[in-house]
């Protein structure tokens, strides 16, 4: 179970307890266990020393040895007839025996004997032995047997003491080891507890990191989804706007046609021929624009879906433009479309039908935004490896605010509201030019009016009119 899993469906108090309370509890427990281990180890260190009572067996056995030696010295004196040397030797042994009994009847030794239950017996023997002090009253044959009996009895008691001391010593040592073992086991358990605590803490830290990572991934996913949602919403808005603009334009043009058709017969009789011709011309113009609008709408849809097919060839840009200009000029003989013919051909790599569409769009645009009494012009220029065809009008130009957005979809100049159009012509023009490795640029002319230029990549072949199936470099599918 990860931290995140735990957090799901739990109250904040529970989550806080898991994230802060549990590590704190682990740390406190570990510190407690370490402190306990420290106390236990200190206790072991303190008790791991050999103290004097541990040496009691030796002390008792030495006393027994002295009792035996004194007994031997006594026997020797009796056999030697109590001569000075044997008396002296007996005196030395007596001193040493008394020093041993003195040791046993004092301090920690006496307490050890008391624990064995023979302290009083030994002290009683010590008191009795004092009455045989050869310094106070020289030992003689008549008291020797009593002294010998005393020494025998003392040896017997000391021997029993040694036995009891040995048993007590082993008991004591064993219980001491038991205590050590128990303490060491507790210390080991504490250390294992601390290790487990450390592992638990480590696991919690790692799982915390993992859940942070997951949260970060989720955040990024959310951002991506939001971005995509924004895109989808923008597309939806675009189609809504598109439908709205296009239907409006359709209705407007249909209204014009309807109105012209109604006015074909006024008051039950036909109008005169010029008026009839004017209305017929209006209907035709409007139908042409309506057809253009449908074409543009279809083209926009094809561009959106990447469904525009390129048929690239090398052709002369000036010839292409001249054909279109001538066609336009025939359609609007009352307008002047100046054509500035270049010195030579301008071979470019392009799809002629798409380029025609662009130039038609730009000329149509120029005619729309230029006053009827002013001409528009078509001229050419070359720069580096590209050729341009510029269509200029003598209208009011484009405001600085509109200039950066002139190629945006559905964008029409604020001051051109009166003009007709769906605001997709320039967008389509630029899209189509870019599809062929070129572009469409715009600038305001110094003398007034706007100038749109279609730029296309110049062909290295330099031979116009020859079909080229290979796609030129920079031309996008």
């Amino acid at each position, binding site marked *: 179970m990860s931290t995140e899993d735990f957090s799901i469906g739990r109250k904040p108090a529970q989550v806080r307890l898991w994230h802060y309370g549990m590590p704190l509890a682990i740390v406190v427990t570990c510190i407690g266990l370490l402190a306990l281990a420290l106390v236990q180890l200190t206790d072991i260190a303190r008790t791991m*020393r*050999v*103290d*004097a009572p*541990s*040496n009691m067996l030796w002390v008792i056995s*030495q006393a027994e*040895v*002295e009792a035996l030696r004194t007994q031997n010295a006594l026997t020797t004196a009796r056999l030697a007839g109590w001569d*000075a040397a044997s008396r*002296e030797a007996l*005196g*030395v042994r007596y*001193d*040493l025996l*008394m*020093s041993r009994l*003195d*040791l046993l009847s*004092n*301090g*920690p*030794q006496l307490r050890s004997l008391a624990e064995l239950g023979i302290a009083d017996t030994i002290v009683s023997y010590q008191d009795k032995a004092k009455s045989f*002090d050869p*310094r*106070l009253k020289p030992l003689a044959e008549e008291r020797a047997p009593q002294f010998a009996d005393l020494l025998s009895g003392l040896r017997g008691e000391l021997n029993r003491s040694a036995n009891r001391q040995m048993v007590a010593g082993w008991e004591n040592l064993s219980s001491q080891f038991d205590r050590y073992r128990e303490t060491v086991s507790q210390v080991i358990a504490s250390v294992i507890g601390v290790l487990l605590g450390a592992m638990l803490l480590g696991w919690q830290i790692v799982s915390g990191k993992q859940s942070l990572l997951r949260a970060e991934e989720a955040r990024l996913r959310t951002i991506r989804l939001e971005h995509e949602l924004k895109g989808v919403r923008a597309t939806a808005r675009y189609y809504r706007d598109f439908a709205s603009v296009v239907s409006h334009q359709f209705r407007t043009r249909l209204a014009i046609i309807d109105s012209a058709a109604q006015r074909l017969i006024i008051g039950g009789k036909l109008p005169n021929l010029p008026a009839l011709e004017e209305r017929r011309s209006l209907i035709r113009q409007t139908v042409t624009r309506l057809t253009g609008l449908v074409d543009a709408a279809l083209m926009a849809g094809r561009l959106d879906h990447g469904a525009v097919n390129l048929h690239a060839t090398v052709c002369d840009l000036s010839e292409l433009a001249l054909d279109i200009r001538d066609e336009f000029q025939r359609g609007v003989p009352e307008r002047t479309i100046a054509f500035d013919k270049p010195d030579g051909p301008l071979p470019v790599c392009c799809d002629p039908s798409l380029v025609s569409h662009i130039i038609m769009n730009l000329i149509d645009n120029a005619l729309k935004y230029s006053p009827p009494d002013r001409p528009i012009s078509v001229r050419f220029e070359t720069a580096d490896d590209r050729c341009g065809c510029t269509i200029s009008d003598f209208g009011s130009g484009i405001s600085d605010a509109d200039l950066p957005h002139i190629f945006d979809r559905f964008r029409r100049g604020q001051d051109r509201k009166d003009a007709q159009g769906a605001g997709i012509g320039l967008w389509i023009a630029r899209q189509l030019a870019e599809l062929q490795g070129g572009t469409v640029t715009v600038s305001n002319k110094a003398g007034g009016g706007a100038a749109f230029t279609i730029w296309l990549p110049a062909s290295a072949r330099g031979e116009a009119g020859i079909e080229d199936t290979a796609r030129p470099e920079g031309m996008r599918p």
Partner: protein
Amino acid sequence: MDLLFSPPRRARAIADGFSFLFAVAFLLALCSPSLAQEGVLLTVLDTASGEPVTFDRDALEALPRHTVDTHTSVTDGVRHFEGPLMRDVLAAAHFSGKEVLAIALNDYEVTIPVSDFERFDVIAALEMDGEILTARDRGPVWIVYPRDAHAELQDIRFDYRWVWQLTRIQAP
């Protein structure tokens, strides 16, 4: 310095006349049993000269006197000990070994590094709590370490070096 350690010949003379002295000592013992065996208390063998050096009570008391107040492993409470420093005794006897074998009246023997006497003020105690030590307790000479003054001395490995009834010192 008034050192009264006896030359070997004199020691032998004393030993020869021991029987006579014993009779005198016996009379003295009636009044003071603890001093009955007085004479040579400590003999140092393996000296620089190769000759044994003996110390009687006067010779030991003539050395600079030191005191040690300490607990012992075989008594209760703090005891007050007096006697010459072990290193002074060894110097007076011209003993120059690295270790000594300390031997007691009851033939208990233990090897002690001489460095003990250099690092610590170990004394050859002649008195405890103002009472002269005798062969009937832990005298006449008891090697006493300043146990309370040094934590490292509170260990059985030093406790067994507290030789009481010390009678002879020699090279191990």
